[in-house]
Each structure stands twice: as C-alpha cells, then as structure tokens.
C-alpha cells in the first residue's frame, strides 16, 4: 500500500461539493414500469451552447449536431438555405467564441468536423497502450455489479450485499469477485481491503493518487460516471423519488467513490508498460488541446448549422400560423367541449373531432387535469404517483377494496405458477408436464394476436379518511381551478369530456413510455375519473355557485380515455352518466369513432406499408417494435386560444395548450403554463432530440436486442451499461428519422412583459430559454407571431425578410 502522494492536502478538495456538482449533471432515469421522459441535458441547462457542447463531447462523448455531410446534403436539397444559416448566425452571435461569417460556415460544411478530445481516463489510456479494451472491461465489471445491487425482482437469489450502503457493497462484492483474477487483477482485488469504507475518504484518496488537475476534476468525474451513465441515472432517480416522497434523497458521492477507486486502482495494478508515466503527460496534453480556439470555432459551426436546420422549419410554421385564416368563432353554446391532454398525439384527434361537428369544441390541458395524486390500487402495497414527476402529489386516493382479494388471489396464483416454472428443482418437472401447453400460447399469439387484458378499475375513494383524501374545500378549489384553466367559467356545454390518454401495446418493455407522462407514466384514466367525479358532485357545485361560478344543471363532466395506439376513445364511469344525456353521449360516441378512423388513416401514412387496420393490429401484435410513433416529431408548443389553430393541420407534432390572455388578468395561468407544461414539453422534446441525434449515448439501442435487466431497464445484448433514452425503432423507421431533432419552439399568445416576469422568476425556465435548449416566440393579439425571445429578457421583432426568404 503506497502512502498518498506528498502534495496531497485533504482540505484542498471539497469532494462533497464535487459529487453534488457532478451528480446534478447526471439526468435521472426512470424505470420501465413508469418510464417518463427526462431531459438528458437537464444538468447542463445552465451552460451556454458551446460550453455545453464541449462538456458533452469531452466528458460524456456525446454530440449536439449531425455529421457535417448531413448538412451539406440538406443544402444541396435546399432543405437548408443560406438565409437560414445567416439567421442562425445572427441569433447565436452572443454565443460564438469569435465572429463567424456565412462563408466560413459554407466552407466548413464540406469539411469533416474536428473531434473534441475526450477527457483522459486510466481505462482509456490503458486501452490505447495495451490494445485490450479496458473501457469495456470497466463498463462490464461495474455494470454487472450495479445490476445485482439495484435489481428489484429479476433474480430470485438476490445479491447478499444489497442491503449494505452502496460503496461498501461494491467493495465487499468486488473483493470476492474472482473474475478479476482472470483479468489479471488479483492484486487489485486483495488491495481493496485497504480502501477506506467511507466514500468521502475513498474519493479523497483516489483523487490524490490520480493527481488530476484541479480544473479538470469535474469533467473527469463526469466522464467516469458516464461510463455507467445508465446506472448512475438510475441511482439519481432513486435519490430524486426519495426526495419527492419527503426522504433525505441521496448524492452521487458513493457511486463516484466506486468509479474513482476503480480508476485509481487500475492505475496502480494494471501491468501496462508506461501507464503511470503517460498518465500525467496525458493531462498536460489534454489541457493544451482544450485551449485551441480552432476546436471551439469548429464546435460553434456545428451548432450554428443545426440551429439553421431548426430555423428552416420554424420559419415554415410561423409562416403557416401567420397566413392561417381561422374560422369565425361561434358564439352560441357548444354541444360538447372535449378537453384532451396537450400531448402532440391529441392534435390530430382534436382536429378530426372538430371536423365532425361544428358544435364540438376541443381544448388542451395537462393530462392529469391538475390533480396529482398518490394512487393506491386495491390489493397493492405501494401507491403510485399519478402526476408529473416534478411535484409531490398533495393527495392520496385509494381504489375501493372490492377487487382486492380477487387480485391478490390472482397475483398469488401467478407467483405460485412462476415459482413452479422457475423453481430450482421444480423447473424440470414443469417442462415435462406443463411445457407442451406453451404450443397453444405460441400459436394463439402468432395467429389471433390476443389483446392484453387491463384490470377493470374499481371505485375511487377520495373523500377524507385517515389515509389522506381530499376535503370538500379543496375539492371546490380544484373544481374551480379546472374550469377556470379551461377558460369555461361562463360557457359550459352540456357535455364536458375530460379525456386522459394511454396506449395499448403487447410485449413492449417501453409500453409505459407511450402512456401519459403527466400522469407519471400511467394512463390518465384515474385522473380523468377523479376530476369528473369531483366536478359532478352536487356539494362541490353548490360550493362553486357560492363563489359565483354557476355550473349549468345540464352540464355533465364525462371522463374518457384516449388510446393513442388505436385512436379509440372509451367513456369511463358509464354507470354515473345521467339518463338525460344518453342520446347526446351516443352521438358523441359515433363522432369519436368516425374521428378515430380519420386519424388512423392520417397516421398510417407515417408507417411504411401500413393502413388503418394495420394500426389496430400494431397494438396487439407481440412482434411489433413500432406500435405507434408516440411523441416522435414533437417540435412546437402553442399556448393560444384554439381558434388560432383550428382547421390547421399540424401533423401530430405540436403540443396545444389553451390560453386566453384576457381571461388571465393576474397571469396566474400564464405562470403555470410556462413553468409546468412548457417545461415538461421541453423535457420530452429534448429526450427525443437526444435519442435521435445521438442514439449511441442517449438512445437505448436496437429493440430486437433488448434484454430487460433487474426489471428496471434494458441492456442491448448480453452485457454493458443500463441503456437510457428511447429505442432506435421509436425515432427511426429504418429509412429515415421519424423524429427530426429540433429543440422545442414555444409560441405563446400573451403580452411580452408578463412573460418576462415569469422567466425572471424561474431559474430553470430561464436557463432553458437563455441557453437555447428551447425557443420562445410571442404571438400578438391579432394572432401574428411577432417577436422572438432573444435571451436575457430581451425580445426581438421577427424580421419579415427572414420569413419571406423561406416562403
């Protein structure tokens, strides 16, 4: 055991701070059971584009743009014009390290981009020197341990060290792992005993041994964690959800200790010629390379090109909005008001439904309808969050217990069956007695494509009890908030449908990713039912009347669920529907069926060789890898009254939130929209952006190779890191990208000053906007998109010339 290097002073390194900074850069990764979209660049939102691009390239090995040749091709096909590039240069001028001209960009587009050097690590250096892939070994070794430590139910024989604190568990398991002996690292294994058990001390010791220059420590630590970035994301998720539930959360220190200890021990124990000598030189070289301004300019050109690609599309949609003549607004009472989630998949259905009948009005609202809950299913032990993952649900709701025993019995039967099938000794008898019956399963699933049965939900118990619930006053508050947010205070129709959404697919590990993100990766049925039950409650309505909000007696709030794969809308809680509305509901049902057919016809054009009936098949075929496109294509967010966009085909790529500035004098709703749905939309958009522009780092790879690990996420193949992001098949149809990576363009019809106030008061929103992770445009009261937010609370009028150039 060597003594720490002499220049090491423990006070010099605040490792807790280091772990926090680096930990914040790692995006949390939700498990597949409730897979919700997360902005992979969340931790980099505070960085300006070139800076962020630098960190991503050097520490994570990720990129923010296509290859240069892709842009060259776009220029040839005129999908990208010189005007777009000039516009991008003008927009980004503040971010560029030095002035760049259009000619420079046009010349550079035909050259290959200069690679930004990755942060040196011992594993990388050893790979280079020894010709043996120590990066891969590191990833496999650490991932294999993490899979055992984090597993939530795959292994019937769990890891004996899973109850220990993370760093201690790793140390103990690795000290036993003879695989290291085969790798020639037996001495490393034995030496682990001398490593401190406290992760803080271990990090200090490792950093001292590695002697990484102080300025580079953050990038270095991030680079190490990125090797097992998926598992690091899962660990961050555990801390995140613990903190949401009121727990202490957790920091990245223990996992950082694992990565750093492993590296420092590789440096010490790898028998690679010249490793130690080269290690220090390598850092010197890295710092020299990083300072070269040519590399920075080069990166800036990549970013400008990509921004130009985004602008070519943005100019198009602005042009379409500005030239669109909305139909004359109908002032008479509508027959039906149908509210859908702002999800981009609602847009085609809303358009189709409106085209059925002029007396149907559609509205856009966050799919949890403003009620985030902890929902305890009957018979289950643990409640699930049915609300956005950014907030702690304020209420607890239970499903009534009449199905609990049956469900538990079924679960018991399933578990027992599984124990027979996968028991250590019973599995042999199982194969010989029950095995042949699987022929039936093989045949039926290949031929009949049976639909998975979702459990029929029971009643909702939300009235106050010991376990939570919602008191009457809160119910009235909630009801008022929903009606006001929908902008319906004085014009409620006889039927107000609140439609949540979910998706049906078979044999799909990513199924929950197609459900409603605002409901925490579940379908929105429970939230829709709860909202409507409250809104239909006579006591609540009495309370509302006292506050001057008169709900007409003939208004019925109808809960519904939109199946986005099949584009079918099911009415929920039908037993509560008033008999007086029977005919109206039947009419609506018929119109929804017709609208659904129309949407399927439209959507089938996005799938190669598909037709309307094929989309239904996709929802139940166990071999299907693209049940639906999900939110692929999402590029714009529009908050404006519906008549601004009514009649406009937005192709299922736009989030539509209803907003009437006149009805929001205190700007409470504007504040809500910009700080909640807009941020969620941006997160979803950036998830798609990352998975399509950098599928290796931020995508989960090829679905046909997926291997579900620990019942948490997927591996691609037999080993490697836990994969994050979306599968390749979810963003690409084999011939072209189904999601063209463009950062979100938000268009809000509101005065600019109040928007500035919101931006000023919300740091994360401001970071996202000021650093170009999303773009904001203002629509004026005449419905023209007039200004763009230029960062730092400044607005710039959109030049007409730029728009006409692309028209």
């Amino acid at each position, binding site marked *: 055991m060597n003594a720490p290097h002499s220049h090491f002073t423990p006070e010099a390194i605040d490792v807790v701070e280091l772990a926090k900074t680096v930990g914040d850069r790692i995006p949390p990764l939700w498990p597949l059971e409730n897979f919700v979209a997360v902005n992979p660049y969340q931790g980099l939102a505070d960085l300006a584009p070139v800076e962020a691009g630098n960190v991503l390239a050097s520490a994570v090995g990720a990129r923010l743009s296509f290859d240069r040749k892709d842009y060259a091709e776009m220029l040839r096909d005129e999908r990208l014009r010189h005007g777009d590039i000039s516009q991008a240069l003008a927009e980004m001028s503040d971010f560029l390290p030095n002035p760049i001209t259009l000619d420079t960009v046009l010349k550079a587009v035909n050259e290959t981009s200069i690679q930004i050097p990755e942060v040196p690590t011992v594993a990388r250096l050893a790979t280079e020197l020894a010709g043996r892939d120590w990066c891969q070994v590191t990833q496999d070794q650490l991932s294999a341990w993490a899979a055992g430590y984090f597993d939530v139910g795959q292994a019937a024989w769990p890891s*004996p060290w899973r109850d220990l604190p993370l760093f201690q568990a790793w140390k103990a398991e690795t000290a036993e792992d003879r695989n290291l002996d085969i790798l020639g690292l037996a001495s490393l294994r034995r030496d682990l005993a001398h490593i401190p058990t406290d992760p803080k001390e271990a990090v200090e010791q490792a950093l001292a041994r590695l002697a990484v220059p102080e300025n580079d420590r953050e990038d270095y630590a991030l680079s190490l964690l990125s090797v097992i970035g998926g598992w690091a994301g899962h660990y961050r998720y555990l801390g995140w959800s613990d903190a949401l539930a009121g727990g202490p959360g957790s920091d990245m220190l223990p996992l950082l200790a694992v990565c750093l200890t492993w590296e420092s021990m590789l440096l010490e124990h790898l028998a690679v010629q010249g490793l130690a000598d080269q290690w220090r030189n390598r850092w010197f070289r890295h710092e020299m390379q990083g300072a070269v301004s040519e590399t920075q300019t080069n990166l800036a050109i990549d970013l400008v090109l990509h921004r130009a690609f985004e602008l070519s599309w943005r100019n198009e949609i602005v042009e379409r909005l500005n030239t669109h003549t909305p139909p004359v607004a109908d002032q008479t009472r509508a027959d039906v008001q149908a509210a859908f989630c702002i999800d981009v998949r609602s847009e085609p259905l809303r358009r189709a439904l409106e085209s059925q009948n002029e007396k149907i009005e559609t509205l856009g609202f966050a799919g949890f309808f403003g009620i985030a809950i902890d929902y305890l299913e009957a018979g289950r032990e643990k409640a699930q969050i049915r609300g956005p993952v950014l907030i702690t649900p304020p209420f607890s709701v239970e499903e009534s217990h009449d199905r609990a025993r049956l469900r538990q019995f079924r679960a018991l039967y399933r578990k027992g069956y599984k124990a027979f099938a996968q028991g250590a000794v019973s599995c042999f008898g199982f194969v010989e007695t029950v095995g042949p019956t699987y022929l039936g399963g093989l*045949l039926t699933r290949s031929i009949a494509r049976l639909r998975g049965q979702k459990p029929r939900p029971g009643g909702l118990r939300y009235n106050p009890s010991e376990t939570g619930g919602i008191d009457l006053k809160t119910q009235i508050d909630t009801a008022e908030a929903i009606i006001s947010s929908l902008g319906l205070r004085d014009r409620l129709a006889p039927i107000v449908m609140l439609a949540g959404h979910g998706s049906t697919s078979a044999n799909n590990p990513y199924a929950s990713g197609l459900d409603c993100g605002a409901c925490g990766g579940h379908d929105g049925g429970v939230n829709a039912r709860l909202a409507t039950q409250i809104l239909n409650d006579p006591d609540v309505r009495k309370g509302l009347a006292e506050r001057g909000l008169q709900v007409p007696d003939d208004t019925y709030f109808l809960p519904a669920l939109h199946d986005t794969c099949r584009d079918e809308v099911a009415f929920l809680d039908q037993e509560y529907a008033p008999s007086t509305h029977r005919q109206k509901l039947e009419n609506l049902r018929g119109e929804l069926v017709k609208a659904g057919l129309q949407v399927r016809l439209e959507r089938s054009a996005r799938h190669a060789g598909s037709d309307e009936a094929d989309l239904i098949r996709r929802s139940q075929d166990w071999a299907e890898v693209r049940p639906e496109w999900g939110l692929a294509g999402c590029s714009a967010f529009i908050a404006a009254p519906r008549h601004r966009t009514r009649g406009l085909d937005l192709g299922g790529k736009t989030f539509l939130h209803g907003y009437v500035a006149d009805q929001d004098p205190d700007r409470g709703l504007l504040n809500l929209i910009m700080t909640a749905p807009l941020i969620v939309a941006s997160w979803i958009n950036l998830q798609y952006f990352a998975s399509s522009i950098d599928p290796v780092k931020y995508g989960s790879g090829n679905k046909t190779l997926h291997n579900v690990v620990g019942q948490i996420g997927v591996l691609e193949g037999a080993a490697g890191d836990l994969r994050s992001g979306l599968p390749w098949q979810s963003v690409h149809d084999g011939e072209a990208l189904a999601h063209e990576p463009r950062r979100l363009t938000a268009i809000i019809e509101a005065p600019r000053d109040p928007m500035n106030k919101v931006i000023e008061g919300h740091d994360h929103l401001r970071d996202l906007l000021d650093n170009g992770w999303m773009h904001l445009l203002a629509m004026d009261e005449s419905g023209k998109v007039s200004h763009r937010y230029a960062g730092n609370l400044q607005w710039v009028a959109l030049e007409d010339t730029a728009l006409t150039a692309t028209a």
Partner: protein
Amino acid sequence: MTAQLIWGIASAPALFAALALFASLQPGQRPLALRKFAKLVSIFAAILGFASAILVFAEGDQSVSLVTIEPLSLSLMLDRLSVSLAFMVCLVGTICISFSCRYLDGDQDQGRFLGWMSATLGSVLLLILSGSMTTLLIGWVATSLALHQLLLFYRDRPEARRVAHKKFVFARLGDVALGFAAILLIWTAGTDDISAIGAVAADHQAVAALAALCLAFAALLKSAQFPTHGWLLEVMETPTPVSALLHAGIVNAGGFLLLRMSDVLITSPAVLLLLVVVGGVTALVGTLAMLTQTSIKSALAWSTVGQMGFMIMQCGFGAFTAALLHILGHSAYKAYAFLSSGGVIDRARQTRFIRMDQSSGIARTALLLTMAVSAGAFTLWLAGPQLLSKAGFIPLVAILTIGLGHWFAQSSVRQHMFLALPLIFILSIGVCAVYLAIQSAGLVGYPDLAANIPQTGTVQTVFEMMTIIAFFTAALIALHISTINNTAVGKTLYLGLRRGFYIGQKLEKWLGIDPAHKTRNA
C-alpha cells in the same frame, strides 16, 4: 398418397434451402415478397410435418434414399423420433419466421436475416431426418455454419463477433468428435446407414464404446454442457427470434444425436454414467445460476443450460423416451419464453400486488418435502411395477416430487395447514399422475427408444441415489437463500453461480478466446 407425403416431408429441407436462395435476391430492407413467401413456405412445411407425423405413427417407418456411393449415402429416415422433432422444429420455425417478419421490419438486412433463418431451419431438418451418418454429419455442420451467420447478423458489434467466434471454436471441436465417431462406425459396419449401424453395434463392443464416447463428446459440446456452456449465455447479440430458435430448436441437437444413436450409446455403460455426471452437474449449476441472474435473457439462457443438462442426464440413465419428451416440452416453453421476454415488465407489474416470504422453517420444509415425495411414491406404486423396473424412472419421479415439495415450501402456505396439507397431497398426486401418464405415453409411443432402456444395475442404482441426494441438496439451498446469503461460503457461492464458477472464462482464456481481449470499434 403415402409416397407423396414422404417425398413432401423429405423435401422440407430443400424447401427451406430454396427459400434461403430466394432471400439472396431480396437481402435488404422490407423484402415484401420474401416475407409473404417465407410465411407461406414455413406454414406449408409445418403442415407437411404434421401430416407426416400422423403417417409415420399410423403406418410405420419410412425411408428415402437419394444418392449412394458405397459406403456413403444421402438418405432420410422418417421414424417416430425424427418426425416428432421435425414437426416441432417446423412449428417453432414457422413462428420464428412470422415473428421476424414484423420484428425486423425496417432493418437494413431483413432479407438476409430471413434467408439465414431459412437456411438454419433447412439444415436442422436435414440433421433430424437424416438416415445415414453422412447426411447426419452434413446436417450437423450445416446447422452450425448457418447459425453462425445468424449470430453474426449485426457484424459491426464487437461482442457479437467475439461470441460467434467462441461458439465457432466449440462447434468445430464437436464436428471433429462427430466426424471421428462416424468414421469409426462406417468403417466397422461397412455402411453409413444408421439403422444398420445400430443393428451391428452390439457385436463390436470396443469400437462402439469408443464411438459412443465421441458421440457423447459431440453432444455435450452441442448442448452447452458444463464447462463448455459459456457461449450459450452470451449469444444475445443477435435478434430475439434467433435466441428462440437456438434455445428451442438447435441446442437440442446434442440430445437428438444421443437418441438417434442410442443403439450405439447403450453398448458402453461407462459413457452413460459420464453423461449422468456431466448432465447432472450441468442441471444443478444451471438451475441455481439461473436464480442469481439479473437480466431476463441471461436467466432464460441459464435455464436452458440446466434443462439441457437434465435431458442429457436422462439419456445417461437410459431414459430415452423421457429425454425426448423433455426436448419437446422444453422447446415449446423456451420459444415462448424468449419471444415474450419483452413483456417481463407487464408481468412484474401484475405480481407486485403481494409480497411472498421466501424463507421457511426447516420443520415445515421437511414436512412438505416428505409429503410431496410420498405422494410421488404412492402414485408410482399405483402405476405399477412396469414403470418402476425401467431405468432412471425412480430418480426422475423423485426429482419431480422434490421439486413439488420445494415449490410448496416456497409458496406461502402458512395458514390453514390442516386444509392445505391434504390439498397439497392431492395436488402432488395429480401432478405425478399427469407426469407418469405422459411418460407411459412416451414408452408406448416410441417403442424403438423404449426398447433401448437398460435394466438397472448396482452401479447405476448408486448413481441414481447420488442424483436424488444432489437434487435434494439443491432444493434445500434454494429454500434457504436468505440464510445462506449471510454466510461467507454463501457469498462465494452466490458470486460463483452468478459468474458460472468462472469456469467458462477460464476455459476461454485457455483456448485463447480471452474475455478481456476485445477491441472497441474494431
């Protein structure tokens, strides 16, 4: 009609070969004509397989001779063994092909994939239907070569190349062993006709024993027996339907070889005992290692290793019909398990309603185990002495009942013991009765194989007893995982099992396929 049917099934391998050739015309993305054609051909083959199975069971064995150059010949043999397996392979193949048509939609090389899948299916059918050693050898090697192309489907993945290479090395070792056995047998019998060889094997004890050893070696390599199992665990670098086909159709080839050559095999009791030992150890390691795996496909792969071990052990006991039934049941189960592996999250969601206590008291375990075993013994006694006298059946029933007892002990039978115990007793008898009914049907249905089941000798009885004890120990280990996890030995055992006792890695290092020696982006 009979003649046409025979030629029909005999042409099945050629049909798939033609399909593979057709695929080479449409090797790329969305090969629409090929997809239609592939589905039609494979469904047609499955129907042919079914019809010929009925024919053979009704009218007796058939054979087709294609080419003869003394002493070598190309010929097919349609007996109950071959048509049963051929039908199963056609069925699983049809399902895998139809699955792949959808699953690989949009893939750059879907045509190539379907082509090699057809080629693999054709080769497996040739192997199964072969009537001569020459045909068998051709089918054996062709299967492995066609599969190699499927394993390398994503050839830009370094892991895929590494694993395919590893499999390639083991497969060639197996080829050499089989080739040597074939030469020995052809040289001794003067013909390569398998039935003729079987008929004279007993007259040439020494040569037959040597050939049996070679055959056993080839089978152990093909069926991923410990310690050469490593490749099977890692071949997940290729689309799921390949895993389904491999685990349900191809890995059985080792077992099939032993069944096909059972006439030769039974000439050497020593080789049989070797199979018992290797198969038994593989079964136990496989099944315990399965419990420790954290990913669904690894767990399924270890489960296959274990099941193949069990099947080889059955062959070693001479319980050939039981081994055949095991292959059939396992094929259906494992194909389904792989193809539906994407649904594991859904299934986990459905069982999260309750928590089950894993540990259970020694006394209760003992009670439940005893009860299940006595139920088995009772059923066996009811079934009569005919089954009891058959070699291998006592340990097989014992293992079934130990499994049942383990299952009961593991399940949360906690309350209402007075009600539960009789129910369990009846359930045990029920399962044992189903098992024995299936086994009896096997004995009646496959008289050729049943005829080769040896009578139990003293040495064999000792091995049978040792096997029972070993499986009983495994059940005890699996029942006390949480206790074991707290001990130092238990921790070592856990990691060892999870990593397959490192033997795979060591063997690979020794063979020059170093696990660490992989180059990124090479």
